[in-house]
């Protein structure tokens, strides 16, 4: 039996966001939008879902009088991502 893949992460945009955030310390909303080619609205919704799951931290501030949203992965997010990758490897029968 295969373990079910984490439904929060098993979505195209959310997985893309978390994969970027695992590679960097923190990233601005605009950077994530640029890398994922998502619309601001859709990205905003998915970021909220990741935040509600406790996988990312979102901080809002102002930079040069413009609102700035910075996202960073939490330890719970790192654990969830690692578990997701392990489950995926098991699902695909990939040996380490």
């Amino acid at each position, binding site marked *: 039996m295969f373990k079910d*893949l984490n439904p929060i992460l*098993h*979505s*195209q*945009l959310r*997985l*893309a966001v978390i*994969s*970027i955030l*695992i*590679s*960097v*310390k*923190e*990233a*601005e909303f*605009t*950077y994530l939008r*640029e*890398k*994922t*080619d*998502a*619309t601001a609205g*859709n990205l905003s919704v998915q970021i909220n879902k990741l935040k509600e799951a406790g996988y990312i931290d979102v901080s809002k501030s102002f*930079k*040069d009088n413009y609102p700035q949203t910075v996202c960073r992965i939490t330890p719970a997010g790192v654990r969830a991502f690692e578990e997701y*990758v392990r489950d*995926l490897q098991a*699902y*695909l029968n990939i040996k380490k």
Partner: protein
Amino acid sequence: MEQEKELSGQESLALITRMINKARRDYLDTGLSALLWGSVITFCGLAAFVNTYLRWPVLDYVWFLTVAAVAPQVIIAIREAKNRKYRGYEDDLMGGIWISFGIAIFLLSYIVNAYNVSEVASLFLILYGVPTFATGYARRFRAMIIGGVACWVLAVVSHFTPFPYKMLCIAGAAQLAWFIPGLIIRKRYLKAKEKNV
């Protein structure tokens, strides 16, 4: 990436790989700091060498240019930080290495002047090699690894070389450690910027 799409296992893995690679490849310095210091140190080294023959009093103070170069360096650092849309894990590490290098250079300059230390060029070259090699190693940037090693090789060469030629060792090290890698980084940066416009 507009709609929520059900992913297959293979697609998930491919997406993770693509995004991690995108973020990794995205590390781009502007190269301006490396070019600045590569130019300044090369100029100072060459000026000190030429001045052995010219004996212009003003060129005796040429190394003070390195103090003046701190101002544009600060401006470059502030502008780069302002334009950066993300922070990598190793950014703080790199910052720490180069700040500690700056402090070490400042202290070494004071010590060699206060105590009239000989083999100054070799000491500076050994120090130049440390952050250069560390940066190249951490960033997997071969030009800076070669530059760092070149500094150490030139430190040994400089030890067996008479005075004015030691200055050529310093100029050569600045070219190999900073100016040439700076040119490569700058070229990559401008290429990536052009792609994103």
